[in-house]
């Protein structure tokens, strides 16, 4: 079963995509297609500004006004069932700094529709899983960068999603926290949870993922098995070029 199927997506932040005459560089995604099988650990790679975060936001229902189709577990609309099946850890650390970790999990858990008992149990589980249980009652503003990243992930895991979307989950963290996150992700993937990992760290993608989709300038430039690729970084540079990609 396909956890995620994206077919022919075209999207622009600045212009309605059904309008003709849009400049080439105004498209964030252009005729983009990819599919992810249930239980897969899928890497989504691309240089800065390639369209990865746009794709994540589109899958989570934050962006509208695109052409094409997005199917999540064969559902086309973002109903309660679909949204509850997605866990999303955005690239910015999106938690409330003046609340404790437990209070953060409570607000997101209630929004996900968890009952009181499930919320308490699952909050403890994800905090344990991410190594934050002993810091559960501390305000998030006192957390280190690594702890914040792990809490960002814990929020995404809280409601036991079937599809986990991770946008650069290890950026700016120390090797210990990074390793802890890798172990957590590997473990939950063995339980059959589908993971789409958006990252710039080639070693991370090669170590964790079984499939890879490369995106550049809003379009897919490669899709295949990770085992087909010997040196991912070299392969990535061959596909996307060595020129700098500073975003405007």
């Amino acid at each position, binding site marked *: 079963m396909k956890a995620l199927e994206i077919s022919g997506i075209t999207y622009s932040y600045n212009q309605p995509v059904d309008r003709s005459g849009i400049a080439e560089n105004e498209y964030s995604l252009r005729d983009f297609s990819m599919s992810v099988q249930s239980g897969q650990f899928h890497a989504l790679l691309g240089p800065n500004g390639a369209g990865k975060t746009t794709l994540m*936001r589109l899958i*989570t*229902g*934050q*962006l509208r006004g695109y052409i094409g189709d997005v199917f999540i577990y064969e559902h086309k609309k973002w*109903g*309660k069932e679909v*949204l*509850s099946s*997605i866990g*999303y850890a*955005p*690239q*910015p*650390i*999106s*938690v*409330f700094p*003046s*609340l404790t970790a437990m*209070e953060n999990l*409570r*607000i*997101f858990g*209630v*929004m*996900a*529709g968890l009952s009181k008992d499930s919320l308490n149990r699952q909050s403890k589980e994800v905090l344990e899983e991410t190594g934050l249980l002993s810091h559960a009652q501390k*305000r998030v503003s006192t957390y280190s960068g690594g702890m914040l990243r792990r809490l960002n992930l814990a*929020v995404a895991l809280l409601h036991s999603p079937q599809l986990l979307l991770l946008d650069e989950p290890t950026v700016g963290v120390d090797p210990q926290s990074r390793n802890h996150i890798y172990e957590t992700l590997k473990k939950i993937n063995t339980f059959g949870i589908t993971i789409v990992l958006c990252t710039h760290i080639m070693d991370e993608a090669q170590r964790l993922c079984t499939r890879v989709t490369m995106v550049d300038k809003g379009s897919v430039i490669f899709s295949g098995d990770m085992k087909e690729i010997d040196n991912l970084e070299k392969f990535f540079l061959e596909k996307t070029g060595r020129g700098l990609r500073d975003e405007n």
Partner: protein
Amino acid sequence: MIFKKLKELIRKELLVLLRDRQTIPLLFLMPIALIFFLSLALKGVYSDKLTVHQISLILENSSRAPKALKLEEKIVNNKLIQRVERPEGYDNDKLFEYGKAHAVVYIPEGFDEGTKPVEIEFDPVLDAGYKVALRSLITGLTAEVVMGIDDIETMASNFIVEKKRKNIRFPSALQQSVPGWTIFAMFFIAIPMSIAFLREKNDGTLQRLFTYPVSPNLIILGKLIPYYLINLTQFVLMLAVGVYVMPLVAGLSFNLGEHPWHLVPVAMVTAAAATGFGVLIAALARSPEQTSTLAATSALLMAVFGGLMLPVVVMPLVMKKLAMISPMYWAHQACLDVILRDASFSFILPKIIILTLFALGCFYIAGRKVKWM
């Protein structure tokens, strides 16, 4: 489930707000301090000057004749006059320089005979209004003595009647300050509110909430309700300070008029207008720093134009017209209608409608302007 989610969103917002060390002083202590200090400072400006502050007067009588003694008695017994004794070694210049008296009245020998007039000398910096009032008073009392009339005012009342209009009473310092600074503080909620909106938009928490099975409208409502409730709390608390605290600490009295319950709809629409203003600022500004400047400057200008700092009744006509562009003017006038003029509900209804339209306009523009997602 919807109510559970809404309750949780409100709880979260209140927790975030209460843990912000700047918000509570800004929203509650600032207006209390403004009410307290400005009411005291402006006590004299808003009050009937002559009855609140007696004129200190040195009265010297060189004549022992009956009319001179009668005039001295009348002056001394007048409730507007406080007789003081000349300190030893003080001439008139020194008296005024050291603020020992506002004026000196001298009844000379020969007053009874009509050969010498009563002399008045004022402190040169004395307010012109006081001078006119004291001169009229002394003139009136002298006329009574000379013409043998007991009370010239009673006699004149057959010829002159002062008609008072109920609806244009001048507010006292507290009547002006309490609703004025309360409304000002309510609109100041735009600062923490718009900062919270923008901060959550910029750090992605707002967008993250939108990825859950919950309506975006519910999320926005969950953010608005706490600020609305804080606005209502501000209103009640500031009125309570005016009614119960100010008489004790500052000796100023304040009451809510004959129909205090009419303040309920006024508070509700004012809170709606203030939260609408906050959302509009959040929609217009691009950074939390911008929201502070924009919200504070706008609130201050609306307060100045709206007659919160200076009563509209003393403004020139052009400023009176300009005042009407400020929502604070309508809120303040509605409060004064209830507190000062004992207005009926139908009298304050147009002001309530204007504030409601202002709130709806703000929400509409903010909704059109911003992509919260």
